[in-house]
């Protein structure tokens, strides 16, 4: 199925912005358009001029947040002060002295391909004077899902969860349809637009998939949302890894606490086994061949949990919702539902109907949160978890 980014409905139809200008020379008309200027300042390179053109389209206003990896500014179009954007300025990294950091490349590479209402839009890319990369992203002022989950003053119900999950799975489905793995789905990467739409953000760990014989790293996805096959060190995997994360977000939305929150990779496996059942050759053929497979203690085998467990654990989801959740956190990735199957599930048609996005619970102070979310490095947990969880080791990360 071909979803051309040209055809997909643009969420910013009212203020369409210049798209994908990172590779100026690949775009012949931009050259044509700027040709008269080129003659004016012939001493400068055409790419530089193009870059300046893009840079001058935006005005940087106040700083929204700063992290180890990036600084996020609030900005707006020079021509229209009411059209806000978030400008993510990626810091020149000590690790990547001679080039761009991998996260930035990934983010630009995949975000400019994907245009969907549930995926954060990348309007432009330019480099500022100090050779820093700046991503002009859609401005999402209402914080993220994590904020809503954690705030005990906010009450939400099944219709709201259904609406959020629908938007999340649609975004993931669109990524997978276009063969992009997100690989870092978690509540604080799910930002909320001013109209209530949930948008998948932070593509710093994204990559394309399905290439045979191409090893991918298993050191991705924030631990609590990491599927068992990655914990067992699989190097070839599929969209099922994102679906596991989606299922964990679903469970977290229902429980309002992370469902399986291990404090080390090993602990995470143990907790998954306890919660969902011990992976064995019976329920997951070939699992013992995975590089980091740890044979389970025969005396400690937990049988794979059935419907009753999910119904008991997540009574708010209702029987149909519990079934969907169960299908999305099946241990064997081949048996796990895909995003497409999840969207075909009859939970969406069953009562209650998902809340309209305008009526979803909201919280003030999202701007700061967006600043924090966008400055975080992929796979990291937030500061408040620092004691609970070890930082991920990215030295093993190869793309």
């Amino acid at each position: 199925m071909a979803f051309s980014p040209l055809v997909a409905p643009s969420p910013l139809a009212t203020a369409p912005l210049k798209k994908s200008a990172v590779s100026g020379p690949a775009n012949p008309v931009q050259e044509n358009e700027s040709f008269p200027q080129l003659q004016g300042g012939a001493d400068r390179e055409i790419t530089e001029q193009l870059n300046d053109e893009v840079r001058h389209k935006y005005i940087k206003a106040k700083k929204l947040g700063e992290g180890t990896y990036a600084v996020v500014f609030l900005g707006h179009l020079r021509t229209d002060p009411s059209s806000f954007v978030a400008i993510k300025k990626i810091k020149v990294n000590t690790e990547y002295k001679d080039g761009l950091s991998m996260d930035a490349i990934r983010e630009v590479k995949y975000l400019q391909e994907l245009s969907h209402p549930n995926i954060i839009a990348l309007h432009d890319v330019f480099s500022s004077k100090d050779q820093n990369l700046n991503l002009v992203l859609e401005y999402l002022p209402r914080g993220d899902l994590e904020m809503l989950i954690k705030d005990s003053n906010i009450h939400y119900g099944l219709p709201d969860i259904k609406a959020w999950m629908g938007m999340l799975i649609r975004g993931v489905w669109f990524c997978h349809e276009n063969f992009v793995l997100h690989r870092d789905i978690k509540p604080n990467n799910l930002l909320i637009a001013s109209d209530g739409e949930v948008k998948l953000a932070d593509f710093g760990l994204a990559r394309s998939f399905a290439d045979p014989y191409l090893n991918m790293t298993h050191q991705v996805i924030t631990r609590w949302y990491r599927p068992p096959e990655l914990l067992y060190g699989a190097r070839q995997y599929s969209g099922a890894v994102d679906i596991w994360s989606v299922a964990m977000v679903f469970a977290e939305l229902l429980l309002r606490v992370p469902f399986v929150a291990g404090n080390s990779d090993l602990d995470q496996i143990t907790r998954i086994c306890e919660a969902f059942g011990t992976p064995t050759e019976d329920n997951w053929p070939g699992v013992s061949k995975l590089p980091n497979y740890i044979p389970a203690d025969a005396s400690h085998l937990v049988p794979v949990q059935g419907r009753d467990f999910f119904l008991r654990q997540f009574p708010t989801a209702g029987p149909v919702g519990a079934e969907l959740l169960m299908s999305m956190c099946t241990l064997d990735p081949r048996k796990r539902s895909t995003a497409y199957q999840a969207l075909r599930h009859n939970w969406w048609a069953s009562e209650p109907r998902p809340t309209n996005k305008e009526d979803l619970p909201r919280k003030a102070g999202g701007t700061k949160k967006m600043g924090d979310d966008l400055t975080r490095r992929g796979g990291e947990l937030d500061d408040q978890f620092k004691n609970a969880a070890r930082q991920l080791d990215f030295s093993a990360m190869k793309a």
Partner: protein
Amino acid sequence: MPPSREAMVHRGDEDEVCPVCKSSRYLNPDMRFLINPECYHKMCESCVDRIFSSGPANCPVAGCHKTLRKNRFRKQTFEDIHVEREVDIRRRVMTVLNRREEEFDSKLDWDNFLEQREEIIFNLVNGIDVAKTEADLQKYASDNMRSIRANQALEAKEVTSFQERQNQEQELARLRRQAAKEEYENERKEILAGREDVLTRLASGRPADAATIAREGQRVLLKKSSARRSEEERIRLKQAALRGTDAKKPGQPAAAAEEGGSGLIKGLRKIKTPEPEKAYDPFGGMVPNQRDYYTLQDHYPSTFLDPVRQDTRMLAGGYDLREYYSRTLLEAFAGLGCFIDEEVSKREGNAFNTMKPVGTQGAALAATSDSQAGK
């Protein structure tokens, strides 16, 4: 105090006689007269008990053949039986034709409706065209059951809220009175205390201070009462604000005429039925699995891929060759669905939009120039 209704009824009726049993009030001072809204013939309580206790029976008045039931007998409210009858008819018609002003398009329509209603009542009271009028009313009632109910409910709600408001106001007035009384008491006590204080100070102080002490006492009193007044004012304002929020607006009128219109009443506002919500689309308007140029198969023979099919480790990690097939085919055919000429003409149609995406326009123009070169 005006005489009670009971007294009014009894006054001058000392020798009222029951038309049925001919017993009079003179013999039976406790005699009570009842009427039945079926025929409005008056008879005494004992007659009603006697005749109708064993079920419905004909009216005992000569010439009246109406069948009456005991439970419909009631006391007369108005002395004039014609007034009693008209009030009953009016009440019945009003419960059926209970449209509200909000339901009409214009003031004129509302007035016309009121006139129509009066006419119906007049006809029924005076026996003009009764059969037809009754039939109309019946038909209207059955056609508009829902809106009649809704309007009744609204009315009941308004009545209760009005009563509530009245009770509240009475309570507030009572509190205000009480507060005023208390305040008056306090003030009086304070004046007395102040006076006593001044007196004692005058008694113990030097004669030269007398004037100042007296003046001071006066000032203290004044200050106190003015402070109280402002406090009082504040409370009153607060209560007024509370009343303001309590006064709820009357609910929205029920949806006007049912489908097909009421027929009887003209000028009713058209009901705007809210557009039914569309079914939730989990795919957000996109069509899944739309492959225009190829069909995807589950298996494609390839020696290059054979090792993958056998590699349990790869398969156990969730790697799926079908994703690879799907991706390669998508990439092979992706460009075929894009007709750049069409897209360009569509975009030129929207040329008024000055902020169009430059990148896509660029690509499109480049493509058209290519196609021209091709020619």
